[in-house]
């Protein structure tokens, strides 16, 4: 797999480590009423779809940026790569 890094261009997937579903960006609010349940679901439950999947990859052997990669789990085709920072900010995190 080749990951089209937004800053560095095409990079071999071997340079990256994989964390998982990009929903991990949406960390629950620790003060919410259902925090325990929300953290359990956040930590342990996954959609695990067969098809398009947004996921977090870390450019460990490169510029050490986190990316959100939209990839098809049935074909390994990659349709979109964004900086995780941009995605997180657009979702209202790290204001």
């Amino acid at each position, binding site marked *: 797999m080749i990951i089209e890094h937004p800053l560095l261009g095409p990079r071999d997937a071997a340079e990256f480590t994989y*964390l*998982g579903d990009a929903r991990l960006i949406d960390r629950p609010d620790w003060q919410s009423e259902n925090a325990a349940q929300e953290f*359990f679901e956040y930590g*342990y*439950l996954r959609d*695990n779809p067969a098809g398009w999947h947004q996921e977090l990859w870390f450019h460990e052997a490169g510029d050490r940026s986190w990316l959100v990669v939209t990839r098809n*789990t049935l074909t390994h085709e990659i349709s979109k790569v964004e900086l995780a920072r941009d995605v997180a900010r657009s979702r209202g995190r790290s204001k």
Partner: protein
Amino acid sequence: MRYSGFKVLKEALTGHKGWAPAWRDPEPQPHYDIVIIGGGGHGLATAYYLAKEFQQKRIAVLEKGWIGGGNVGRNTTIIRSNYLLDGNEPFYEFSLKLWEGLEQDFNYNAMVSQRGILNLIHTDAQRDAFVRRGNAMILNGADAELLTTAQIKERYPFLNTEDARFPIKGGLAQHRGGTVRHDAVAWGYARGADSRGVDIIQNCEVTGFRIENGKCLGVETSRGFIGAGKVGCAVAGSSGRLMAKAEMRLPIESHVLQAFVSEGLKPVLPGVITFGAGHFYVSQSDKGGLVFGGDIDGYNSYAQRGNLPVVEDVCEGGMAIFPAFGRARLLRMWGGIMDMSMDGSPIIDKTHIEGLYFNGGWCYGGFKATPASGYCFAHLLVRDTPHPTAAAYRFDRFEKGLMIDEKGMGNQPNLH
């Protein structure tokens, strides 16, 4: 029809006209007492034990493709019971004991070969961990022996014990571990189940569940609705996809694991050897091919094929410790989809939906578990209580902090 040496001789002398198909090809009935989804090793073993040990009638196994086309026919066939934790070791030892009597039990040659398995040690810390694991195995009635470098050199003279990065400092051996002919496991269980009246229905994909008032009434399939008193799901790598149809999210990610076979060689390798530190393990099949593999690719996948970086990593690991194997040519490679759980251990449990039961999360180690998994799942389906050796494989262990994390990796499926 019972298979025996006498029968083989008789057929040889009478033109092989007396063999019958090993299982029927029945049409689905409108309703069964128990429907098992997935005709892999675990689904077929479940049906077999339901009929044989728990005297159940009216059972069906629904398989979307052909039986044995999933992981049961794609794995590297290693069986062992060398686990550390209390939640695991009694279960895997129960499984190994079932393997030991399996061929007589289901009257089928599954080529169970207890040729032994050796885990290599490279550091003092690793030795401490392996000693502890060996002791845990012995406490649970399994066998384990710690080998010195000299003993390893004597038994496996082709090993590179002096690798600069990973010199071999000993090993943990389980002599009762070994390999089994994987396809024959699926076929043997299928034949045994079929002969006890189980309907094995191939080319029948489950596309949904009919759930009313919190109770599962049956399954929608590509061959119509099939009603069921109880439904057991055993679809391994497809667990996430299937359970999503019951609106369940699982503590599981699907990942691809690759395996490799070399050209056939004269016997060179007497048992199974795992070089965990180098992400490599190998055995030699009875046909002579070196059967080897390493780590999972590490990203979510349903593609049944992996990528080249892992191929390189596996082959590098192999070359470091078995330099002679570099002369062998690679014949085939393939991938299978692993149901990687959040703690690396499986789940055999009821769901919150009445009548719907789940078996999955087997990671890359579910082949060895096949007999016990089938037995324990059948026990749960019939008695509604877990089998004592599978009591820890609960859905709620993640919520309650009762993880069974052999490797201590945490909730990161690609690291287990």
